[in-house]
C-alpha cells in the first residue's frame, strides 16, 4: 500500500463523489474527468501501462468531451432548478450502501485473496498485440463490427435529427 497508491485512490474517489454530487453538470463532467485520470494513474501503478494510456485516450480524451457536448446540446449547462435528486433517491442510496457493504465485506474476509504480490507482469505492446491478434482475434473483430454498427446507427440518428428539426 504505497503512499502514492493511497493518494491516487483518494483523488479518484473524491473525483467520483464530486462527479455525482455537484449541482452544475459541467462541473460533474470535469470531476468525472479527474476521476478517470485518477483511475488511469491506478492502472499505471498496477503496471498496466498500455491500458492506462488507453484509459486516458478513451475516457479523458473522448468520452469526457462527448459528455460535455451532450450537456451543451441539451442546454443543461446552467445550474438546474431546485432539487437535483429523483423522487426515490433515499432508496437508491440505501441500496448502493448495502451493495458497498456487501462488496467490502466480501473483499475483506474472503479466503480466496492471495496474500503475496506476484512479480510485475511484462505487458509490452508487442505481446499485447500478439495476444490480440492470436488468442483474442475473434473478440477484436466482433468489437470492430460492433463499433461499425454503432456508427451506422448514429448515421441514421443524425438523419432523424435533421428531420426532427424540419418538422
Amino acid at each position: 500500500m504505497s503512499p502514492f497508491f493511497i493518494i491516487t485512490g483518494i483523488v479518484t474517489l473524491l473525483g467520483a463523489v464530486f462527479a455525482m454530487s455537484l449541482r452544475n453538470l459541467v462541473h460533474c463532467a470535469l470531476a468525472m474527468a479527474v476521476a478517470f485520470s485518477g483511475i488511469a494513474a491506478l492502472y499505471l501503478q498496477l503496471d498496466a501501462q498500455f491500458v492506462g494510456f488507453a484509459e486516458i485516450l478513451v475516457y479523458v480524451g473522448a468520452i469526457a468531451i462527448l459528455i460535455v457536448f451532450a450537456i451543451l446540446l441539451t442546454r443543461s449547462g446552467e445550474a438546474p432548478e431546485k432539487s437535483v435528486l429523483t423522487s426515490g433517491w433515499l432508496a437508491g442510496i440505501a441500496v448502493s450502501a448495502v451493495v458497498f457493504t456487501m462488496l467490502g465485506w466480501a473483499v475483506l474476509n474472503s479466503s480466496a485473496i492471495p496474500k503475496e504480490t506476484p512479480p510485475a507482469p511484462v505487458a509490452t505492446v508487442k505481446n499485447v498485440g500478439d495476444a490480440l491478434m492470436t488468442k483474442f482475434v475473434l473478440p477484436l473483430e466482433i468489437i470492430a463490427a460492433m463499433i461499425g454498427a454503432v456508427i451506422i446507427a448514429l448515421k441514421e440518428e443524425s438523419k432523424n435529427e435533421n428531420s426532427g428539426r424540419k418538422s
Partner: protein
Amino acid sequence: MFDKLDQIFVTALHWLVGFLPDAWRPLASSLICIAFILSVFPAVFSVTTIFERKGIGRIQNRYGPNRVGIPFTKIRLAGFGQFIPDGVKMLTKEDIVPRAADKIVHFLAPVVMLIPVLLTYAVLPFGKNMTVTDYDAGLLFFFAVGGAVELSVFMAGWSSRNKYSLLGAMRAIAQMVSYEIPLILSAVTVVMVVGSLNLNDIIAHQNQYTFGIAHWHVFTPWGLVGFILFFIASLAESNRTPFDLPEAESEIIAGYFTEYSGFKFALFFLGEYLGMFAIIGLGITLFLGGWTSPVSFLTWIPSYVWFFTKLMAIVFVFIWIRATLPRLRMDQLMNFAWKFMLPLALINILVAGIWHYMAADWQRWLVCSAIIFGAYVVFGRGLMHNQKLGKRIYRYAE
C-alpha cells in the same frame, strides 16, 4: 570526440545525479530532466515568436520588430530582444475575469492546457538516449495526453460565459477532433512498418544508411504521404494558420481565450506554441529520422543538434505557411478532413501493408506510388467537383 559532445548532456545528468543517495536518484534525474525541458522549450518559444513576427513581416514586405534592444544602449539586436518586453507585458497586464465567468473552471483552463502539453515532452527523444522516459507505448502516451488538450479548450470557452468564446471553443474542439484521426492514422502507418510503439525503436529503424542516405520514412512513398498528412494534421491540431479559425481575429476576436488576459493569456499562448513544438517533434521522430543525420558522412554532428535544426526548419515552414495561405471556412475545413485526409490515410495504411509484405525492389516502389497517386487523384477530384472554381477574379473596393 564527437560522441562525447553528443552525450554531453547525458553525462552531465549522470554526474549531477551521482551526488545523491540511490533512493532519491530516479526522482532527482526526472526533476533535472523536467527542469531542462522547462528551460529549453520556453526559450525556443520566445525565439520562435520573434522569428514568426519577423518572418511574416519579411514575407509581407515589411520589417518585423526591430526596435527592442539592450536598454540605454543603441544596440537594437534586430528585434530579437522583442520577447523580453512581450513577456514582461504579459506578466504585468491586469488579469480580467468576467463576472459571469465560472471562476474555478476559468482559472483551471490554462492549467489544464499546459499539463498535457508538457507531459507529451516526456516521451520525445531529443537526442541519442536523451528521452526523459522511454515508455514501451510511447506514441500511445503522446496521443493519449495530447487528446486532453481539447478538454481545456472547452473549459476555457465555456467558463467565460461568452457566446463568441463558446462558439470558438466548439469550433476548435470540432477541428481538433476531426484532425486527430488522420494524425493518428498516419502515425499508425509508421507503427505498422516499424512494428513498435517505442519512439527510440522507430528512430533506430530509420538510423541505417544506404549509399550514404538515411532510411528516413519520408523517402518512402507511404512515408511521404504520411508525413504530409501528419504535417497538415499537426497544423490543424495547433490551430495554425490555414486552420486558425477558432482564434481568428477577424472572425470571433480571439476565439476561446477572448476573456483571458494577462498571465492566463500568456499561458494559453505558451501552451499553444509548446503543443506545436511537441507535434513537430513527433513528426520529426516518426518521419524525418528524429536525431539521425540525413547523410552518413555527417553523423559526427551531435544528435540533439540535428533534432533542433529539423525542429526550427519545420517551424519556419509553419511560419511561412501562416504568412501565405488564406484561412479555410469551417465546412471546407471539415470536408477536407473527413473527405480527403481520412480516406487518404486509410489508403496509406493499405500501402504500408503492401510495402511491408512485398520484396524490397523497384516493383514495390512502383505499385505503392501508383496506388497513392491514384487515390490522390480520385479524392482530389471528389473534393474539387463541387467547387466550381472558376478563373480568379480580382475585386477591388470601388
